[in-house]
């Protein structure tokens, strides 16, 4: 008996043996008939079921799936309804997809008749069909799968001789319908399609253990014995008192059906991206968060702590995307019930918070510097003597050609290029305009940091002073701004603790600031000191005393000179205190040497016994010896060990001395400049100056030796800035740079690393100039300087 495993579905067709009404669907819709099978052989058993459909009738299919169900009824020759019942009732909702197999017109397709004529005798058919359906289920792609099945089927169909017992029940396969035009279908038929048939696992549907045992088997004896025993038992049973028959009745409880309804489970898709760093982050923070949170259960403090954790450790955690915060939650959610509450509040920080946060400020800071670097890049590069990057877009190509030609021509005419100053940029901002630059100092450790003090020299227009620390990286705004009560007249950076800046002021106060902190107040102030200066402090310097004097600590000390005639050394005991290194006495001329402590006076009435000191400089190698210049025009050589008497006095200037500097290369040569329009070069052992320089009739405010060449020094007088090169000429300055009209130049500073000169003026600008084409020869020219001095002396004799 053939067991059709056809799964009959909705489409029903009354098929009678005589009916030939078939729906021939030649539409392009490719469907696999659920119940379509095809069999090659028509067995003799078929005749019992006498339904015959035309062999070449096409497989029928409803043109639309949605048509109501047709059930196929099979009528036996006797008219009995032997419609095979479907083994498997598919879900009515899944009717939509149907397969239909459309065979080419010439192929004799599996038809209904064939379907019913299928014979599958093997018991494995079920499983086989199942397997096949399963593999059909497994095939993902619809059209190709179906097409390939179709092909295979068509192949099989074309092979009439082969007996195919397999029936393909495709009724369970629910595949999407696809609309394929018939034309294309024909072409597809010709394609070679690979079909992979995979055998799935064998499911055991029925297991009937054997009930008979072979005589030869090993168990035969025991089985036989058991059998015989059993038959005996059965025989003995009847009429035996040992056994009694008893009847039982089981109660079958009435069953009741109970229905339960549950809500549909709503599913939501959630996705998260786990990057490398995401995992790293959550690992780090989860590890930290757990440690802290286990001790504290208060929500507020948890929030705080997480805030803390996130803040310092990783700046972006706090404002990290929600994804990572959710991963934090998920990873440690078992222990932290509180954490989910915390996270939402954190994930959207206040805009205000952002603006105030440290990191934001830092970023702004960096941003500003970068922009300025963009703007000033050529200048800064020139400063540092790096090759300048050309902006590729700004200059048109035509211009450089013209320029270079002109340069060449000028070069040819003039010979070697003249040394010149090129103005790079100037440090100034609106805070500093209008203020007079009184002093400048480089930081000893960071050569990019410059401290500039602003204060008036003259007594009458005093305003509160200003100290600005400028960084090279930002020429438009100082890094630190300190306002002082009175004008700043002197500045120096400490060498041992590079962030200490000593400031001397017009009212005699000395203050030290810590440049590292952002505080605006000085660290130490000398206003409370008893022995403080009563007149403007004209110079301060940190000096390193190598030789420890009696009772004093070795190390750095702050020395200051002021207009009250005292040179004092400041130290920190209980508060800032000073001792006087020297009191500058007035000396009329070298013939009259006053005695110590003598109160006798000449007939002149002097305001004070002491001469205002304006400048001093310690010897570069011997820190005991120093020179001091006074308002009278005298230079006194003093020693730290004698605080009553000068060692020497040099008199040549007729006006107050503004600056004395030892030469950094020749240890007994020093320069002095004063308001009598001259600069004098001295040697330590001679009491008259070796050389005198005068270029204009203006007071020379500042002079400084160049740190690179021994024969070069720079000087600043009211109207212009001059660079003198003694090797080139001792009569005229080598480079002259006039000041802008209306502005007086007041201070000068050489840059230590590069060939640049800084000039401060009375308008609050500090301009940076670069020395170009300046060659004083190789080496430091010490020999040259000494030669010059020697030759000058020789010529004087």
């Amino acid at each position, binding site marked *: 008996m053939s067991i059709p495993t056809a799964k009959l579905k909705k489409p029903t067709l009354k098929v009678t043996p005589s009916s030939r009404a078939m729906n021939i669907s030649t539409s392009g819709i490719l469907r696999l008939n659920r119940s379509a099978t095809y069999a090659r052989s028509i067995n003799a058993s078929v005749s019992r079921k006498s339904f015959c459909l035309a062999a070449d009738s096409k497989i029928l299919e409803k043109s639309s799936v949605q048509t109501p169900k047709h059930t196929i009824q099979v009528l036996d020759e006797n008219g009995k309804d032997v419609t095979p019942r479907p083994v498997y009732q598919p879900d009515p909702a899944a009717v939509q997809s149907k397969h239909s197999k459309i065979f080419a017109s010439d192929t004799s397709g599996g038809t209904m008749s064939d379907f019913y004529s299928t014979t599958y005798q093997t018991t494995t058919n079920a499983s086989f069909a199942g397997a096949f359906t399963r593999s059909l289920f497994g095939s993902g792609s619809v059209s190709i799968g179906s097409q390939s099945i179709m092909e295979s089927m068509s192949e099989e169909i074309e092979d009439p001789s082969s007996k195919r017992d397999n029936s393909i029940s495709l009724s369970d396969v629910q595949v999407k319908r696809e609309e394929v035009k018939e034309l294309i279908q024909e072409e597809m038929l010709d394609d070679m399609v690979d079909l992979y048939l995979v055998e799935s696992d064998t499911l055991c549907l029925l297991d009937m253990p054997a009930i008979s045992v072979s005589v030869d088997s090993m168990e035969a004896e025991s089985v036989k014995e058991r059998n015989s025993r059993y038959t005996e038992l059965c025989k003995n049973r009847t009429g035996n008192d040992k056994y009694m028959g008893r009847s039982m009745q089981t109660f079958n409880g009435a069953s009741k059906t109970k229905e339960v309804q549950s809500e549909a489970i709503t599913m939501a898709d959630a996705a998260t991206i786990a*990057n*490398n*760093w995401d*995992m*790293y*982050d959550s690992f780090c923070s989860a590890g930290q968060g757990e440690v802290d949170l286990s001790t504290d259960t208060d929500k507020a403090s948890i929030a705080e702590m997480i805030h803390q954790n996130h803040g310092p450790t*990783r*700046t*972006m955690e706090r*404002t*990290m*995307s929600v994804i990572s915060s959710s991963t934090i939650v998920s990873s440690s959610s078992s222990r932290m019930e509180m954490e989910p509450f915390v996270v939402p509040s954190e*994930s*959207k*920080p206040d*805009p205000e918070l*952002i*603006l*105030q*946060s440290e*990191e*934001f*400020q830092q*970023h*702004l*800071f*960096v*941003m*500003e510097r*970068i*922009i*300025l670097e*963009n*703007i000033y890049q050529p200048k800064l590069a020139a400063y540092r003597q790096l090759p300048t990057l050309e902006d590729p*877009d700004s200059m048109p190509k035509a211009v450089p050609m013209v320029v270079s030609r002109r340069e060449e021509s000028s070069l040819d005419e003039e010979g070697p290029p003249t040394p010149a100053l090129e103005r790079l940029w100037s440090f100034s901002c609106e805070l500093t305009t209008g203020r007079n630059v009184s002093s400048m100092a480089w930081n000893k450790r960071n050569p990019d940091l410059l401290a500039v003090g602003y204060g008036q020299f003259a007594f009458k227009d005093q305003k509160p002073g200003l100290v600005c620390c400028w960084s090279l990286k930002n020429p*438009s*705004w100082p890094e630190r701004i300190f306002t002082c009560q009175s004008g700043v007249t002197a500045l120096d950076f400490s060498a041992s603790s590079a962030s200490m800046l000593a400031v001397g002021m017009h009212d005699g106060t000395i203050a030290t600031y810590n440049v590292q902190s952002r505080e605006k107040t000085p660290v130490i102030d000398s206003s409370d000191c008893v022995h403080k200066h009563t007149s403007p402090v004209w110079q301060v310097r940190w000096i390193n005393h190598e030789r420890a004097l009696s009772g004093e600590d070795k190390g750095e000390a702050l020395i200051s000179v002021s207009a009250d005639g005292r040179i004092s050394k400041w130290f920190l005991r209980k508060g800032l205190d000073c001792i006087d290194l020297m009191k500058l006495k007035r000396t009329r001329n070298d013939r009259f040497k006053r005695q110590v402590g003598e109160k006798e006076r000449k007939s002149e009435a002097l305001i004070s016994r002491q001469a205002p000191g304006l400048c001093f400089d310690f010897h570069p190698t011997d820190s005991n010896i120093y020179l001091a210049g006074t308002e009278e025009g005298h230079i006194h050589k003093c020693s730290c060990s004698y605080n009553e008497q000068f060692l020497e006095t040099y008199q040549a200037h007729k006006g107050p001395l503004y600056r004395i500097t030892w030469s950094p290369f020749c240890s007994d040569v020093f320069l002095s400049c004063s308001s009598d329009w001259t600069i004098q070069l001295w040697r330590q052992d001679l009491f008259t100056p070796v050389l005198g320089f005068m270029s204009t009739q203006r007071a020379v405010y500042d002079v400084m030796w160049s740190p690179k060449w021994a024969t070069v020094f720079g000087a600043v007088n009211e109207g212009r800035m001059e660079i003198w090169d003694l090797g080139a000429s001792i009569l005229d300055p080598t480079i002259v740079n006039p000041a802008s009209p209306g502005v007086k130049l007041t201070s000068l500073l050489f840059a230590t690393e590069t060939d640049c000169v800084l000039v401060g003026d009375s308008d609050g600008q500090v301009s940076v100039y670069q020395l170009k084409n300046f060659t004083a020869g190789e080496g430091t020219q010490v020999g040259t300087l000494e030669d010059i001095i020697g030759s000058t002396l020789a010529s004087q004799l």
Partner: protein
Amino acid sequence: MAEVEETLKRIQSQKGVQGIIIVNAEGIPIKTTLDNSSTVQYAGLIHQLVMKARSTVRDIDPQNDLTFLRIRSKKNEIMIAPESCVEIL
């Protein structure tokens, strides 16, 4: 706070700076000196780029982080400081 404002003003007044946009973590602009449409456009586009750039940097080494991003084009340059995302043209 005032210092921040001042710094912003100074940057804005520098020659060559077209505008500043400050953007929070989600890409919503907080403060801007450009017009609205440009701001929104920039904020949206740049935000994705920053995310991608940061992801790239950290994928290679999770301990690393993006500190600054500069995009130079023919006509101008966009500078982005992430974390709170300050962009300056």
